[in-house]
């Protein structure tokens, strides 16, 4: 029966391993938990779940398996359409989205409903099992839909809309840590070691040479430890179609912030023009002319642009093509200027690589960047870091 429980957790996408399951069995054998189901619940959790963000999911799976109190709400529940739209975006693969984009909303909804029906169970990710004040998870059980965030999001056809009004984008949160570990390891490829600061490491070669010169009398040489001195400049596309990629961008940003001592970043929207900004809440007041940025952060900076490069080609090729204001010079001109300053700059694109060929704007930017565009995946990141190290 416990094996079934274990498989059930796995089926619910909890990252449990056999080793941890064996630990649970061992703990039961040693009578760490008494016979109460409460104890068993706590024990299973401490053995199997290693991340508090999975507690909810675990509670839910546990409740289901041990005949939790209620059922998963069916599709007949009253779900606001806006929310369905959001869920749809989560459940469809990018290819499917691209394919369906042309079909229109009604068709899309139909398709999505079918999909939801197939995936009733997974869909229940939106409900969680509530305990009573944490004392017993079995108190008043019940499911409720969670995460219904409505409004604010324009699900429609973003690419063509000319947005004149001031939109508010939120700043990327650099405290997000989920999944950043792997990103950090990939970022470590980017390094330029230098010795600076306090002399706290024995310089073995220096000491030997010094001692020899000293006729055998010890001449200890100390030196500062090696540190990664690489300087990184990030440009982050924010808002609009990038909202779909906010999580991976936050992870990257967060990882980069902790990995690189010398990190500078600026935001832009869709394409880079004559100015960028640092705070999305004050971006209309606090602008940084790109000319200044190029002068201030010289060639020794490694430049990484993060963006989906998904826009109307006008936004790259035409003066005045920006969706936000009337730019005097075309985006392509500014991109070229950037590359004149930082010839090795790379572009990271969160859109899947296989879709790049279908988007004219991606093709354009990729050409400007001399093919130094990489997908925002671990593998892509590694390729990009290797390129920057050249």
């Amino acid at each position, binding site marked *: 029966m416990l094996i079934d429980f274990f498989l059930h957790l796995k089926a619910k996408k909890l*990252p449990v*391993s056999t*080793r*941890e399951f064996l*630990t649970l069995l*061992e*703990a039961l054998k*040693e009578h*760490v*938990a008494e016979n109460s189901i*409460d*104890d068993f619940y*706590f*024990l299973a*959790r*401490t*053995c199997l*779940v*290693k*991340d*508090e963000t999975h*507690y909810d999911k675990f509670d839910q799976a546990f409740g289901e398996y041990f005949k939790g109190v209620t059922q998963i709400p069916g599709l007949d529940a009253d779900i606001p359409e806006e929310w369905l739209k959001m869920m749809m975006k989560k459940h469809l693969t990018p290819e499917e989205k691209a394919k369906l984009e042309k079909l229109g909303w009604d068709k899309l909804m139909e398709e999505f409903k079918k999909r939801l029906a197939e995936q009733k169970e997974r869909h229940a990710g939106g409900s969680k099992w509530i305990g009573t*004040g*944490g*004392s017993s998870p079995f108190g008043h059980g019940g499911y409720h839909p969670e995460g219904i965030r409505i409004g604010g999001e324009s699900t429609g056809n973003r690419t063509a809309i000319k947005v004149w009004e001031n939109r508010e984008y939120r700043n990327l949160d650099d405290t997000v*840590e*989920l*999944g*950043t*570990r792997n990103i*950090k*390891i990939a970022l470590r490829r980017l390094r330029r070691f230098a010795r600076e600061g306090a002399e706290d490491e*024995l310089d073995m070669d220096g000491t030997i040479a010094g001692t020899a010169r000293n006729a055998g*009398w*010890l001449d*200890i040489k100390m030196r500062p430890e090696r540190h990664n001195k690489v300087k990184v400049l990030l440009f982050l596309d924010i808002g609009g179609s990038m909202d779909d990629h906010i999580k991976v961008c936050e992870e990257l940003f967060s990882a980069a912030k*902790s990995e690189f001592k010398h990190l500078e970043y600026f935001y832009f929207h869709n394409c880079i023009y004559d100015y960028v900004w640092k705070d999305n809440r004050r971006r209309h007041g606090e602008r940084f002319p790109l000319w200044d940025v190029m002068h201030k952060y010289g060639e020794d900076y490694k430049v990484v642009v993060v963006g989906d490069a998904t826009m109307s080609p006008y936004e790259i090729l035409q003066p005045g093509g920006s969706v936000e204001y009337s730019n005097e010079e075309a985006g392509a001109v500014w991109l070229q200027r950037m590359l004149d300053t930082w010839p090795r700059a790379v572009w990271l694109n969160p859109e899947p690589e296989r879709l790049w060929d279908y988007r004219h704007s991606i093709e354009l930017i990729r050409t400007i960047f001399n093919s130094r565009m990489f997908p925002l995946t671990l593998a892509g990141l590694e390729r990009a870091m290797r390129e920057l190290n050249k």
Partner: protein
Amino acid sequence: MRFEGTDTYVATPDLMLAVNAAITLQRPLLIKGEPGTGKTMLAEEVAGALGVPLLQWHIKSTTKAQQGLYEYDAVSRLRDSQLGDEKVKDISNYIVKGVLWQAFEQGKPSVILIDEVDKADIEFPNDLLRELDRMEFHVYETRQTVRAAVRPIVIITSNNEKELPDAFLRRCFFHYIKFPDKDTMGRIVDVHFPNLKKDLLREAMEVFFELREVPGMKKKPSTSELIDWLKLLVAEDIPPEALRSKDRKTVVPPLAGALLKNEQDVHLFERLVFMAKHNR
């Protein structure tokens, strides 16, 4: 050996169970939770309750795994050899024992606290896998193997600054200390101030939990701030009425500096109070 909480530390049943699992199965226990929720204190209390020594290893960004085992002080040895010191002949004079070694050679149970493991480099936990698994390591300089006769209880805390490697996590029990609910908090306060007046406690707790709800706080006040604040309230003999106000949102509570330590939070809070006053 079983841990049941102590007179000075309130442990919820799930926390106790996690600690006892770690004690019984002799595997490390990883503790996470908001700052000030008693992670570090837990190790001290477990050691105290079981009556065994506590060996503490506080991790910094520069800490290396090897330092927990031992370090070879080659520089001192070189110097001594120049001075013709007799000590120099025995390399073991220059082996400095780390926290794990000290625990391993106790010959009886002990508690090792590895505090704030997330401060170190991301490879740090991986570098300790084998040592924590087998509770032994090899000293190359003296060709000896140090092995724990009795496996120590290992408690590791993390503030979530870095993600920990999966291989490491799989070997640990894990417990996330949920921020105490009002009930638990009442018991914690009781441990620190057994004679606190009931009405002062009630008012203070309401102020405290309301303050935690203020949106946009950079650092929410935690258990330790509440304790500090109560200490001041008692010392200054602040009456409960001073904490009560018809609309609590329109006054800054007395001695609020003990609760809000971040200057930006103080400003934010004052601004909110100011706005609430004007909107009345």
